[in-house]
């Protein structure tokens, strides 16, 4: 039976069919749905959210060592976090097959950079498998586990946004149970102490050579001979773009095993045509290896190394052809940037924090990254998961050394704090900088589509789970001043920041606790929070047009320039009350209950 599946859904199904027993991940666009799509199979396999990608991979390494097929899935930048175990599990090898899924984001649809993670395969000297779409997932995942077990290596399975989020019809197969390998101690393999690692090191090189030989005959690399004089070597979604451009006027060598490459196959393919293009997104990963082997191809001198490719870009790059299209007049194209949602609990915090102008504010990765955009514009930086807290520490310590007593505030979400903020905070405590560290706890991992995390009280299956007590965690790290507040109450936000500014004996923590407005509330949320709130409405006669409510950046508030009055959209308002509190004239009042 065929079903419409995204690349992520198809990979999940393939993992199930391949007899995988253990799956761990930290959510991150565009990879998130892989683990979510494994939930229906939880009776046959173990599925979990881990607090970060390093933990997810290490857990998967453990499952592999124990003799089971295992997977860890993550977005591209997640593999930076997991790079430490990755580099060494290359030396130890595996017992049960181990696949690491990396979902890259060319074009940065939802990411802070567009690194090409195929380079990790070369760095770690492990094979890299790529697919061009959902339909190829089943065969490629099964082959990846075969490779992993036959060559005693972890396998990097690299996808990209368009592969992850494009849907096509996929044939479902049956699950083939994997017989676990009986566990035995194997110290020279799994204890990567120097003496053992030195012995494993040449095995890694031998393995690459064996994989080169395998690559020449692997079913992952396929040739489509159309009897043409033009050849195209491509991988990933670029295969489809190329086929749309050249159709049957080219022969195709589709590379499914992008490291190591089948160089002899490539050599004879290139020799069989007059002109050969290498078409790949981002880095010239395939192309450079081919050129290094002394084979002449056309690639990145024409095709961009930045951003996604598409059919238009290829046509223009290769043939100077541009499509015919019409364009609307410039004045119609008013920007529509993403914004914090109506009733977002982060809004009240940022609205008040903005008033403390003489502060440097370091931001982090999540919905609250939008605290850096108009009209809130509070955060000064966003780098990577957890960086807010460590950067705030660095800003303070260096400026203080230079005689500047600037106050610094770090802003981080609940899930991001648990991912990699705790060690950063420990540094601020240990090295004693009076930074103000704000944990915006909206009771869920919101940005990636509402995943549970160790702070929410539920696991990936929706079962009750141990719930982190943020206040206890930060106290245990050595924080003396901790304030937990309701961010919808602007007065509490203001007082909390003032109190922390007055405290300079070490770092302080403010925890803002209110659930995401889009969250499907748990019973516990209903017990803890009063979520049936009165919607806001403006009494026009009292509105003086000061625009304070507009400056909260709420999409439910509209300002009429002619009448100089604000109004609240009753359909989208969720009654958070931040606009009411922002109004100095009491012109916004409580209306009907939500």
């Amino acid at each position, binding site marked *: 039976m065929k079903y*419409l599946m*995204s690349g992520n859904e198809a990979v999940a199904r393939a993992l199930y069919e391949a007899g995988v027993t253990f799956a761990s991940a930290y959510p991150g*666009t*565009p990879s*998130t749905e892989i683990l979510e799509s494994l939930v229906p199979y939880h009776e046959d396999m173990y599925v979990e959210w881990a607090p970060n990608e390093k933990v997810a991979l290490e857990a998967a390494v453990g499952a592999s060592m124990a003799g089971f097929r295992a997977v860890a899935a993550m977005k591209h930048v997640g593999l930076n976090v997991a790079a430490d175990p990755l580099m060494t599990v290359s030396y130890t090898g595996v017992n049960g097959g181990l696949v690491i899924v990396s979902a890259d984001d060319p074009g940065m*649809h*939802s990411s802070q950079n567009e690194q090409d993670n195929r380079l990790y395969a070369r760095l770690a000297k492990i094979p890299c498998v790529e697919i061009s*779409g959902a339909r190829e997932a089943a065969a490629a995942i099964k082959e990846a586990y075969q490779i992993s077990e036959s060559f005693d290596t972890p396998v990097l399975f690299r996808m990209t946004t*368009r592969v992850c*989020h*494009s*849907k*096509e*019809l996929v044939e479902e197969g049956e699950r083939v149970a994997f017989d676990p390998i009986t566990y035995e101690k194997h110290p020279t393999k799994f204890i990567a102490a120097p003496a053992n690692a030195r012995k494993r090191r040449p095995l890694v090189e031998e393995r690459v050579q064996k994989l080169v030989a395998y690559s020449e005959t692997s079913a992952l690399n396929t040739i489509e001979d159309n009897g043409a004089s033009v050849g195209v070597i491509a991988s990933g*979604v670029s295969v*489809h*773009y190329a*086929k*749309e451009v050249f159709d049957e006027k080219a022969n195709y060598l589709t590379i499914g095993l992008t490291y190591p490459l089948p160089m002899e196959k490539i050599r004879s393919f290139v020799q069989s045509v007059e002109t050969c293009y290498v078409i790949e997104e981002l880095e010239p990963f395939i192309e450079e290896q081919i050129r290094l082997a002394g084979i002449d191809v056309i690639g990145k001198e024409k095709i961009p190394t930045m951003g996604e490719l*598409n*059919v*238009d870009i290829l046509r223009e790059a290769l043939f100077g052809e541009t*499509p*015919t*299209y*019409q*364009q*609307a*007049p410039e*004045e*119609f*194209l*008013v*920007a*529509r*940037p*993403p*914004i*914090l*949602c109506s009733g977002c609990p982060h809004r009240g915090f940022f609205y008040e924090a903005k008033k403390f102008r003489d502060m440097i504010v370091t931001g982090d990765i999540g*919905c609250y*990254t*939008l605290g850096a955009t*108009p*009209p809130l514009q509070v955060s000064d930086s966003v780098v990577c998961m957890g960086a807010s807290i460590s950067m705030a520490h660095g800003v303070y310590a260096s400026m203080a050394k230079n005689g500047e007593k600037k106050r610094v505030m770090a802003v981080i979400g609940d899930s991001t704090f648990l991912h990699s903020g705790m060690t950063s905070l420990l540094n601020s405590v240990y090295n004693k900088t009076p930074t103000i560290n704000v944990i915006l706890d909206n009771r869920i991992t919101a*940005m*990636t*589509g509402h995943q549970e995390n160790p702070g929410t009280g539920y696991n990936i299956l929706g079962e009750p789970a141990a719930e982190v007590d943020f206040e206890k965690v930060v106290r245990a790290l050595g924080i003396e001043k901790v304030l937990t507040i309701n961010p919808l109450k602007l007065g509490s936000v203001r007082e909390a920041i003032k109190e922390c500014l007055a405290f300079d004996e070490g770092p302080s923590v403010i925890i803002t606790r209110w659930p995401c407005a889009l969250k499907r509330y748990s019973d516990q949320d209903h017990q803890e929070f009063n979520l049936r709130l009165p919607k806001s409405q403006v009494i026009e006669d009292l509105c003086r047009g000061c*625009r304070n409510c*507009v*400056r909260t*950046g709420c*999409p439910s*508030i*509209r*300002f*009429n*320039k002619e009448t100089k009055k604000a109004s609240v959209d009753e*359909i989208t308002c969720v009654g958070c009350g931040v606009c009411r509190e922002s109004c100095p004239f009491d012109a916004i009042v409580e209306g009907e209950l939500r």
Partner: protein
Amino acid sequence: MTKSILFAGVGGQGILLSSKLLTAALIASGYDVKMSEVHGMAQRGGSVTTQVRFGEKVHSPIIGKGDADVLVAFEPMEAARWLDHLKPGGRIILNTGKIPSSVILSGDKDYPEGIEEYLAEHTDLLSIDAQAMAVELGNAKAMNVILLGALAKSLALEDVDWTALIRSEVRPAFYELNEKAFQMGFDL
């Protein structure tokens, strides 16, 4: 010959359901179909699209400039933004209800005047006040299925069992609403 349908709108308008139902209908009609979505940051009130391509054999999952046969625009400003992806003179099915973006809500910019008139002149435009029609049916959210009905008519997909498809995607409480909404759009 591959055909391309571009759905454009604002995060939260129900674009995904419309494109999912269309995709299911195209599969039922025997086409090869690819559908591409946007996830993550843009969904927070930003400009979003889903892309559906179908034919005997579809390669690229994404639509290029001047490539879409039909642009289903859930909002006028988004119709203008994605006009460059429509074939010159191609079909636009437009929901006329306006959703001002943050810079308009704040009074910093005005909602642009004259989009509908411009599109009527330069494209094969079908304007629908789907929002008002949906409110008439009792639920503003059914707007997406009204637009889908109009699209189904445009693509001559009348032989598809739409009732069954709708019932496979929405909860029973919303069967009647969505079936009526679809018919309303189809009968335009």
